[in-house]
């Protein structure tokens, strides 16, 4: 129990001292997760919307695949990315293994099914008459999709929030493909594992509290988007 209290104090001290090693770790965590989430959203929302708007029969198999993707164990994703990017793997010439790029790649694979799958569900929930109405008002296809996405925004934002939660806290894949290299690929989650391994529990708890704080701030911003979207 002591560790939790000391961890809390440690976290406060950390934040106010702006320890350079910590700043680097926090920055890399935000960068990796931010870029991965941005790319997943960029691809996942249109794919999900398109799927949500197609007729049912064609959607079945892809939907099942997407939902299965949501349950992918991150370590398996990590292992797959590892073998792809290894010097003896097919994409070895990229020289991405043990770099932030590899971590971003793994997180995109984890986040994409969540964004696309939940966006699809949200779009399906929109009143079926809405597309007809906007088309009757003379909207083109892009305008139609945009209107539907705006209508489904609560669900779409929830999809992004779910994906964010999935990757910001993820450790198995980034540990494997990043290698937890100090100053290069060490993020909050892998640093927590390291400090747990060496028995520095209060430090691990402190990093955990910082991670929670960051996640809270990011989610608050996203939810703001959800609320304001209707204005």
């Amino acid at each position, binding site marked *: 129990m002591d560790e939790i209290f000391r961890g809390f104090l440690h976290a406060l001290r950390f934040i106010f001292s702006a320890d350079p090693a910590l700043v*680097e770790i926090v*920055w*890399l965590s*935000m*960068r990796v997760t*931010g*870029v991965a*989430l*941005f790319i997943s959203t960029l691809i996942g929302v249109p794919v999900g919307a398109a799927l949500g708007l197609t007729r049912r029969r064609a959607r079945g198999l892809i939907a099942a695949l997407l939902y299965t993707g949501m349950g992918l164990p991150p370590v398996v994703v990590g292992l797959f990315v590892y073998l792809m990017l*290894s*010097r*003896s*793997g097919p994409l*070895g*010439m990229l*020289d991405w*293994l*043990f770099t932030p790029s590899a971590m971003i790649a793994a997180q995109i694979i984890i986040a994409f099914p969540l964004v696309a799958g939940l966006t699809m569900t949200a779009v399906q929930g929109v009143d079926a008459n809405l597309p007809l109405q906007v088309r009757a008002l003379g909207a083109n296809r892009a305008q139609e999709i945009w209107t539907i996405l705006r209508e489904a925004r609560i669900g779409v934002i929830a999809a992004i929030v779910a994906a964010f939660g999935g990757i910001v806290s993820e450790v198995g894949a980034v540990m494997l493909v990043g*290698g*937890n*290299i*100090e100053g*290069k690929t060490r993020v909050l989650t892998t640093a927590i594992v*390291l400090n*747990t*391994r*060496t*028995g520095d529990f209060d430090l691990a708890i402190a990093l955990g509290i910082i991670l929670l704080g960051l996640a809270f701030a990011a989610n608050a*911003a*996203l939810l*703001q*988007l959800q609320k*304001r*979207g209707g*204005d």
Partner: protein
Amino acid sequence: MKHWLIVATGLLAVIAGACSAPPGNPPAANCALRLATTTSTADSGLLAFILPDFEKKFSCKVDVIAVGTGQAIEIGTKGDADVLLVHARAQEDKFVADGHAKERFDVMYNDFILLGPQDDPAKVKGSARAADAFKTIAATQSAFASRGDKSGTNTKELSIWATATITPTKEMAWYNSLGQGMGETLLTSNEKGAYTLADRGTYLSMKDKLPNLIVVVGGTSIQDNKDKDLLNPYGVMAVNPDKHLGVKFEMATKFVQWILSKETQERIGGFGKDKYGQPLFYPNA
């Protein structure tokens, strides 16, 4: 609608900022050598102590990937590291025999110790040989925690069981194969009151977090350790560039020469003396 745009633009700006280089960081050095090693060398603080000298001398950053020896060797086998510093002699010899490295060099050694709960339920404290203690632990069915992760320590543990002519299986309720690193295994043993094999360096560096554990075989220092079977030698190998394209052999060779040099060897021998009253690693190049 306006608010929506403001928030979205703000988010985009944050993400765009995140894509650029981190603030205040010097541009990454062009040269980076990738070292795959065991958790013991990194977690004990040895590498943080000796590596800055190499990085300064050769203007080359060393990227340390600290994993179990089994995983480190696998990383080397795939050509994903330039140089290895590991401790599992049989696996190292196989690595060289398979042509993944041209040669292996002795770097340093320390020793393994058998730890157990304070009350020593199997009454093995003071056994001269770990294999004898293992036999008694099995006979009394006292809890034992194994790394179970193909690490150097796990490999040594299994060879001691073989010497004791016992094959631990998952049917043996007292034998716990954890599949965890040294730190986690020590913490688990401390909580569960189990015996476990550990390298002395990691034990010493975590001793204050392990109040329920005592050394039952191996004594207080390596000179005190009567079982020569518990020696724990570390080897260094540069990954063979003929086998793996893209491996930085030239710099890796410089690293090998550097770690074997008299100066570095002396620094290795001095590490930890002030803090633990004894070196954590003994150079033997």
